[in-house]
């Protein structure tokens, strides 16, 4: 029964959103994605804001690990050698994307749009275009 409860994606998505709200109301911070990784290249943000966000995201990895272990979904998977180039290329593009304009990427859908930030709506449009281009160029070619 517990597994069924914790496998209800609607309930879990609501839990994520509620936690985001609780964090904002209690400590005036919210979840961010992109800029949180800038401490990895020595950029810490005003008042170490990016350091805080980075620590939150390390917590996300720990939380995902916790959920996966509890419900028996943890599987250690090593990347195939032929996929490493793709991982590096895609990761580098993500790195460029998240740095070129602050408050883009996944932050758009989770905090930017609910905050009614103008940039978030523009970034969302860009993300759709990027995803569409990739789908049109690569996915369709693969499936043909």
């Amino acid at each position, binding site marked *: 029964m517990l597994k069924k409860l914790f496998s209800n994606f609607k309930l879990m*998505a609501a*839990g*994520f*959103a509620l*936690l*985001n*709200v*609780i964090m*904002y109301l209690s*400590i005036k911070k919210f979840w961010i994605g992109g800029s949180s990784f*800038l401490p990895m*290249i020595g950029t810490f943000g005003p008042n170490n804001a990016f350091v*805080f*966000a980075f620590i939150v*995201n*390390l*917590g*996300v*990895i*720990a*939380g*995902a*690990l*916790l959920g996966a272990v509890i419900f028996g979904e*943890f599987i*250690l998977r*090593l*990347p195939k050698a032929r996929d*490493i180039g793709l991982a590096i*290329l*895609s*990761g580098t*593009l*993500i*790195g*460029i*994307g*998240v*740095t*070129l304009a*602050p408050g883009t990427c996944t*932050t758009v*859908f989770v*905090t930017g749009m*609910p905050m*009614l*930030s*103008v*940039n*978030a709506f*523009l*970034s969302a*449009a*860009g993300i*759709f275009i*990027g*995803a*569409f*281009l990739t*789908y049109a160029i690569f996915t369709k070619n693969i499936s043909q």
Partner: protein
Amino acid sequence: MSFGKLLLVGFIFGVGFGFFVQRAGICFSQGLASIMAGRAKRIMTIFFIIFIITTIGFYFGGFKPVGQLRGYGFFNVLSGIIFGIGISLAGGCILGTLRQIGEGNLFYLIVFLSFIPGMALVIKFVDPFLKDAYNTKAILLGDILKIPNGAIAAILVLFSLVCLYLIGKKK
């Protein structure tokens, strides 16, 4: 609250986020792929649930801009496109990448570490070159539409509720 305590609190919140993300299977990259393939029901349900709850919550906490409008929006769209291509190739957005690392998929650890050269490229080479063209602004929808943000939020939440209802009805 001291910065050390703030980091501890942040980490605990992060663990909570990670748990819910893992259980909900949230990944906007896979969601976008589903939309392109004509199977948008699950990701749109997740998006609208998050949007409705978070918007209402943020209304009570007070809206403030997340990030910046750069180059009158040009750099936001451009970065979105580059990011969109990146996550589509990787098969994982930021949340998806962090979740998959937690689930033991080390492909995403390489993706995660590869953020570094991309970020460094922009910070060290692109930023100094384009600094004057950025014309950064941190603004909300209400500022440009000249409508109270609360009213915009109410309209968007109502619209999202209708969408959620219609998605729920769709088989």
